[in-house]
């Protein structure tokens, strides 16, 4: 079943332009100049029920705007969208019962109150019966490991703790679809891991679909089945995460350590030397040009191998490469 279907979605904003300084401000007062910002330019995509879809792009790519249109907060200037069968901006309240949202940069929990109060309040807002709310809170408390945080005023929680409560709150009414806008922003590695684990568990157990925006590629790797890469309000790439890796992660990094000292000008055919140390070398090669087999045999013929590490370049680099390609194609 299709959870989200978007075709040719467009959103433009009018922003006032003003020259620098006081003179510019005065001029802008009498002759305002407007610049049209095209935040979303003809976006089309589909998302299946239960899918984990990543929406990746740099700042200002139109990710958040798209999410805000899909939740019904913003009205698009053109195009169609259907979320769980609703047109978001026309049926915002009906849709709200079915989806959960988290905007990583803004809190939805009441700042001065303990999270449990907001949870109970959300129970009322989503018209859940009290017994269900209670059971659900107990369940989410376990899934997100927030048992000892629930009774602390939210303002006293760390960002990581708060985010876990935020995501848990968004799942209280058992939504079919979770829209997460930058859920991992500002979090440290451990806190990110915590949130991802919980989201993955919830998705597996309840079949909730997750549309997640991020500018952090590691979110994708850890969570998503499929990725859509956007830039300047347009899709520049969409595929399964595994395909993305297969296609773009052909360049490998190799680090080797030998039992004896290596030559300063260490070089092997089909590989590029990045760094040479006294006993070790760091190289890179492309599997499309040089098979790993050949690389290994060449490396071992150069001396007695003590240690070897082969790794993929970080996904960030891959995505940067895709942006680069998209720019060149224009």
């Amino acid at each position: 079943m299709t959870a989200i279907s978007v075709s040719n979605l467009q959103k433009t904003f009018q922003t006032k332009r003003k020259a620098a300084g006081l003179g510019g401000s005065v001029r802008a007062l009498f002759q305002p100049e407007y610049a049209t910002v095209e935040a979303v330019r003809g976006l089309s995509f589909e998302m299946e029920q239960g899918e984990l879809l990543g929406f990746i792009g740099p700042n200002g790519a139109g990710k958040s705007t798209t999410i805000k249109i899909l939740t019904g907060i913003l009205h698009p200037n053109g195009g169609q969208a259907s979320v769980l069968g609703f047109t978001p901006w026309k049926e915002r309240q009906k849709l709200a019962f079915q989806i959960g949202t988290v905007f990583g940069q803004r809190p939805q929990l009441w700042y001065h109150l303990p999270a449990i109060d907001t949870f109970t309040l959300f129970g009322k807002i989503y018209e859940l019966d009290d017994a269900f709310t209670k059971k659900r809170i107990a369940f989410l408390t376990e899934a997100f490991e927030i048992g000892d945080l629930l009774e602390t005023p939210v303002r006293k929680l760390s960002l990581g703790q708060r985010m876990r409560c935020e995501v848990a709150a968004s799942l209280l009414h058992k939504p079919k679809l979770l829209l997460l806008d930058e859920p991992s922003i500002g979090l440290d590695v451990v806190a990110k891991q915590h949130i991802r684990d919980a989201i993955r568990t919830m998705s597996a157990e309840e079949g909730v679909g997750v549309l997640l925006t991020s500018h952090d590629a590691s979110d994708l790797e850890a969570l998503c089945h499929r990725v859509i890469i956007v830039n300047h309000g347009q899709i520049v790439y969409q595929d399964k995460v595994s395909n993305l890796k297969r296609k773009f992660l052909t360049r490998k990094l190799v680090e080797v350590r030998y039992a004896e000292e290596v030559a300063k000008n260490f070089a092997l055919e089909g590989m590029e030397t990045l760094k040479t140390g006294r006993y070790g070398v760091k190289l890179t090669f492309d599997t499309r040009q040089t098979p790993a087999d050949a690389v290994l045999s060449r490396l071992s013929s150069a001396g007695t191998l003590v240690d070897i590490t082969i790794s993929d370049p970080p996904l960030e680099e891959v995505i940067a490469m895709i942006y680069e390609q998209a720019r060149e194609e224009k």
Partner: protein
Amino acid sequence: MKKYWHLFKVQLINSLAYPGELIGRSLVIFPFMWIFYQLWKVTFAANGSTEINGLTFPMTLWYLMIAETIELSRPRLANTISEAVKDGSIAYTLNKPYNFLLYHFSTSMGETIFRALVNALLGSALVWWLVGAPPSLLGWPLTLLTMLGAWTLNFCLSAFIGLAAFIVEDTSAFQWIYQKMAFILGGLLIPLDFYPEWLQAIAKALPFASMTYGPARLFVSPTIPAFLSTLAMQAIWILVLAILLTITYRRNISHLALNGG
């Protein structure tokens, strides 16, 4: 409707998060009432009579205490909405299954109650000490009920200004104008009774008078007919403004452009 009641309750608890701040802010009623006391003492003395247009000196002070309580405890809703538009947090109030206006109504009422209570307590203590007991016990319940109407009215007007934020983002100029209108045409500094007849007639027909003058005047001369006519006036304005508000909301929501993120 249950959810709005709950929202009200949660905001009520929330407003107690910083009790020190709550009381501290209300202390401002002391200097205000002290200044009014001095000002009107001189005025009444200069006038040479104990009564001006039906109000005695103690009545005037009690009137001003109620008017100040309403003004000081009314929530700055226009500001709340326009801040939420500016920093983008309005995204959350718009994507929950509740009516945006009713949400703000419930929470702003929840914000008001304790503030009004503390203001009224501190204000009454001072005025009582300065000029003696309030004119009539009946004033309390009648004024309390019309205060609810006053805040509802304030809600409609502030929400109206707040909705302008969907388009212009910053509404502080409108808020300033609104506040000054409430000061002058609502009878916050000078009871409307002291105005010339023609100005009184204009002021009393406008919603500002139903917000401050109505309940405050009722407090010092509480009669059932006055109570009913204040309520009726409030009801008419609330109805008119609520309709306008709903229409404006529907129209403005599609203009909303969110900042940040």
